[in-house]
C-alpha cells in the first residue's frame, strides 16, 4: 500500500513537476524561489497522499497549492497589498531574467508572449496562461481558480481576444 503511494507520487512528480516549476518561475522570477515553491507544493501533495486523503485531480491540486504559495511569497517579499492582489487576482507574471535559465534560454517570442500575458487584465492572466501554456481544459482551470467552468470559458475567449489586440496580431490581420 505504502509502495503504491510512493509510486503514484513519483509518477505525478514526473508528470507535473516542470509545469509547477514553470508556473512558479514565471511569477516569482527567481529560480531558487521557484524551486522552493515547487518542492513545497509536492511536499504538500505527498503529505496529503500519505494521510490517504482523497485527491480528485492531482494537477488541479498542485496548481492550487502553488498559486497559494506564490501569494504567500508575494505577501512576504513584495509591498503589494495582499487583499488587493487577491481581490484583483493580480499575481503578476514576470519575465524571468537570464540568470534564471540554465539549460534553455527563453527566446524572444517566449519573452514577448509572457510579457503580453502579464499586460492582460489580471482577471484573464491565469486562465490564459493555464490554457495556452499548460493546455489545461476549462474544467480543470475552473477547479484551480475556484470559479465556474462557464466563467473560465468566457475569460479564455475574452482573454485571447485581448491578447491578440495587445500583441498587435489583430492589427496585422486587419491590414
Amino acid at each position: 500500500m505504502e509502495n503504491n503511494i510512493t509510486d503514484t507520487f513519483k509518477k505525478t512528480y514526473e508528470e507535473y513537476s516542470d509545469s509547477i516549476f514553470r508556473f512558479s518561475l514565471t511569477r516569482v522570477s527567481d529560480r531558487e524561489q521557484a524551486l522552493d515553491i515547487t518542492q513545497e507544493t509536492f511536499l504538500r501533495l505527498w503529505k496529503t497522499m500519505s494521510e490517504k486523503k482523497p485527491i480528485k485531480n492531482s494537477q488541479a491540486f498542485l496548481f492550487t497549492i502553488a498559486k497559494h504559495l506564490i501569494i504567500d511569497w508575494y505577501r512576504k517579499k513584495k509591498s503589494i497589498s495582499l487583499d488587493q492582489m487577491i481581490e484583483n487576482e493580480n499575481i503578476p507574471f514576470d519575465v524571468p531574467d537570464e540568470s534564471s535559465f540554465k539549460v534553455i534560454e527563453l527566446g524572444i517570442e517566449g519573452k514577448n508572449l509572457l510579457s503580453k500575458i502579464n499586460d492582460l487584465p489580471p482577471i484573464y492572466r491565469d486562465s490564459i496562461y493555464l490554457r495556452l501554456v499548460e493546455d489545461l481544459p476549462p474544467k480543470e482551470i475552473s477547479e484551480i481558480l475556484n470559479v465556474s467552468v462557464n466563467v473560465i470559458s468566457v475569460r479564455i475567449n475574452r482573454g485571447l481576444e485581448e491578447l491578440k489586440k495587445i500583441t498587435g496580431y489583430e492589427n496585422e490581420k486587419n491590414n
Partner: protein
Amino acid sequence: MKKIIDMENEKINNGIKEIKNIKMTPSERAAILRNILPLSDTAPKPIPSPFSFYSLLKQHSFQYVLASLLVLIVGGGTIATSQKSLPGNVLYPLKVNFLEPINSSLNFSPETKAKYENSLVKERLLETETLARQGKLDSAKEKQINELLSTHTVAFNKAINELKKTDQKEQITNITTELQNQLSENTKKIVAMKNPNDTELLDPTEDLNNPKNEIAKIDLSKNGTDSYRAIKDGESDTSSATPSITRKEEASIGEKVFSVSMGNPSQNKKNMSLSINKGLRKVFALYKNGQISECFENGKLYYSASLNAYDGEGGTFDSLGTVVGKYQGFTGKYTGISPKNCERIYVIYPNIWGLEGLNKYNLE
C-alpha cells in the same frame, strides 16, 4: 488573410513552445524528489535473512521444534509437573501452549481429535473447579480459561464437522453427550462451591437437561449431529460459540449468579443470552399477549416488550424482570432505559403489527 492567421498562430505557438521549455534541470528535479521522499517511511526496508537466528525464532515451525527440544532437555519431570499445573502457575503456559498443541497435532482422525479437544475442555473445567475450590479463581484466570476453551471449541467443531462428512452420527452423539454431561456436572459443582448458602440458584444440571429452560444448553439438534451450538443465536456458526463458565454479578440486587455460557467472555451478547434468567419468565407473564425482544445495551441484557394493542403500553425490563423503562403508546414517549440493539424472541399471532408468530425459546 490566411497567411496573416498562420503567422499569428506561429508567433503564439513559438512563444508557447519557448515558455514550455522552462524546465528544471535533471539534478534539480532529482534533488527535490530526494528531499521529499526521505520524509516518508516508505524507503525500502532491508529484508532480514531467513536464515538468521531471529528470523528462525519467528517461524512457528521453528518455535515448535525449539519447544520440543526444550521439553526433551528439561525432561519428563517438568512435563509431569506442568501437566498438573493450573492457571497462574509458571508451568501452565508450557502445558497449554506447547504440550497440548503437540498432542493435538498427533491426533489424525476427526474422532480422536474431537475426543482429545473434548478432554481439553474437561481439563479446563476441572481447572476452573479446582481454582474455585481453592478460592483462587479470579477474573484474569477466568479470562485465560475462556480463551483456551474458545480455542478448544473451534478445534472440536472442526473435528465434528469432519466427522459429519463420514456420517458417524453415533460417535458424534456420544462425544457431544459426554461433553454435555461433563459441562453440567462441573457447572453444578462450581455453582455449589461458590454459593454454598444460595438456595435461589437454579440447578444448572436441571437447566441443561431441560430443553425449554433459557439456560445454556447444548443443541444436539434433530439428528444429534450438531454440537456446541448456541441455541440462543439460532445460527450454525459453531466456531464462535464456546462453552465456558463465567460469573456474573448483579450488584444492584446483591445476588450472585453463576451461569454457563457458550461464548467468549468478550462476546457479552452470547454469554448473557444464555445465562440463567428468571426475568424473561416474568416479562412473558405480563406480555404473553404481545411481543418481547431481547436487547443488549452497554453490555447488559434487557427485555423490551409491548402489548398487542393499538396505543398499547410497553416496557423495558432488566434480566431479573425489574422495570427499567416504560413506553406509553398513546403519547409515543419513552421514559427510562430504551435499548436499541434488540432482537425479537416472542410475538403472539395474529397481531397488529402484521408479524409472523414467534416463540424462540418455547415460552409457555
